[in-house]
């Protein structure tokens, strides 16, 4: 992973907070959910504001946990910020990510219309559709792993039933709990370390 520079905008664990208005590609972790946004405003007086962010994760409806992707504004008072961290992906990393998106080699990708869960490692509500999608290419996977987040252009389930992410942005903590960001063209993850994989639906991205 890359050395951290000024990409950490907020980190509750390390008590980092950069005041100001930031635009670009911003990932925020909120409990077990992830917020994607192109803006964030951090100030002592107004707290943290995200306008039109995409919240993804799981939400409980009755006795069932459903995958979620929701477009919303987020405002928190500085005394009561539930965010674990917010990072801004450097532009050169985003360029690499962009270039990997239009690859000749993966023309037959499955786009899901609505957000769905591919894997959820939970003793009570868990689900696993990896075998069903074995050998297929799924577009826009988002994964929470033990120590970080993977946002990828596509995911393929290999012969062992493990997800292989292509064109990935990885945000995570190292052994010193410092936040790091990296880009990997391909990454193979053991499904046991994955907390969940959600496939974003394209209809929800158009909202």
């Amino acid at each position, binding site marked *: 992973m890359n050395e951290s520079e000024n990409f950490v905008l907020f980190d509750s664990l390390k008590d980092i907070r950069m005041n100001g208005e930031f635009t670009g590609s911003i990932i925020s972790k909120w409990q077990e959910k992830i917020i994607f946004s192109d803006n964030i405003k951090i100030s002592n007086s107004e707290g943290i504001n995200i306008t039109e962010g995409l919240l993804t994760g799981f939400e409980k409806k009755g006795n069932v946990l459903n995958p979620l992707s929701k477009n919303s504004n987020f405002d928190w008072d500085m005394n009561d910020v539930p965010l674990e961290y917010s990072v801004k992906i450097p532009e050169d990393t985003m360029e690499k990510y962009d270039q990997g998106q239009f690859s000749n080699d993966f*023309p037959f990708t499955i786009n899901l219309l609505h957000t769905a869960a591919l894997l959820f490692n939970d003793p009570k509500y868990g689900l696993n559709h990896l075998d069903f999608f074995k050998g297929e290419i799924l577009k826009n996977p988002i994964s929470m792993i033990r120590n970080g987040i993977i946002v990828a252009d596509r995911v393929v389930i290999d012969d062992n039933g493990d997800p292989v992410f292509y064109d990935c942005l990885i945000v995570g903590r190292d052994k010193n709990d410092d936040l790091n960001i990296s880009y990997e063209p391909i990454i193979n993850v053991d499904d046991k370390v994955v907390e969940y994989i959600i496939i974003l639906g394209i209809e929800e991205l158009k909202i």
Partner: protein
Amino acid sequence: MLLYENKEQKLLNLLRFTGSPFKKFVSTGEIEEDIGLVHSRQDFIQSIINIIEKEKNFILPIIGNVGTGKTHVYWALKHELYYYNIVYISLENVIKKFYNNTYTEFIENMGIDVLRNIARRLCNEWGALERKFGFFHLGNIEKVKKEAFEKWAPNFDNKDAITDIITAIITHQLDPYKKLEVERWFLGEVIDVRDLSRLNLKHDLRERNNSYTMLKVLVENAMINSVLFIDDVEKIISMMSPISLEEETEEVFDRSWLYGTRQSPDKRRAEKILDKILNLTKIDGLRIIITLKSKEFYKEIVSEIEGKNNNLLKLIKEPIVLSNFVEEDLFHFYKKNLEFFFVHINYFDYIKDFSDSFYPLNDNVLKFIFNQTKGNPREIIKLLIKIFNEILLSYEDLEDVLKKYE
């Protein structure tokens, strides 16, 4: 330990085994020429390079008699200006489908990767890489198309052609299911009507306006500067001249039925070709070099252009004349050819052992060749081929053969 070696005999034996080092006396745009220009032509090539580097749009005529090495100049330029995209076409071969053939030559020279980069960059400019929520590309084809038509299309004259090209570029970038088919379209392949309709395109690149507009897009958006080297442009003038009675072939029908009595079909075709070449000057950054066999052809071309559009004369540079070799050039040329030949067959001793010698020929033979050919490079090579063949294939002694040419 080797006490004595007859190196001259060894060289001769080697040549008898490998064959003559002089084989080709006509340079073409297809077969690369590895040997550079002779000393007296260094200033000549430098003056062309200066014009190319100083100006973006021009037509530079190079005048040289048959066999003076006009096509060889193309290869010399290509080697010197390796950071330019220099494309060769000969009007002897490219008369029909002029734009399509020129475009295909450009693609062959530049490679499909350049086109892919251009398509990616243009789509980026048109907002295809806009990120929703800071991360996710939506690839909204209709929105990108609208942006492209508003921002970009007004710069092009032919609306149908630019519509096809914008559609192709956007489909290539944003529709992975049609990407490979559009790439075939980019490469200038023949696409059948069903595939064209699936791609939402009207014509493939055989259509004149499409190939011209695509050429314009390619040249104006590539990160590398382009030079188009058009050889044998005098073909236009010779097509325009009336056919002499001796050359006239018996016709089954009177061509004047189709073309009227004033113009022959060849003249019409020649005029069209000239129009097409002049139209290329509208492509920003396309430097054009044309070759002509004589000053008379140059004058006729200029007067034709003047008749069409006086303003275009501003684009035509003073012609550069390519003269025959001077005597010293022949010695240099001969030596360079032999060195290249022996290095090519891994006989490096030649450079060491024969650095001051013209063996198997000698000064007198080379001077004889120069006088006989008056320094015309093609004639020089022809005579060298003849002499070498005589040396290598006949049973006569070397001295006897050389005596005939001294």
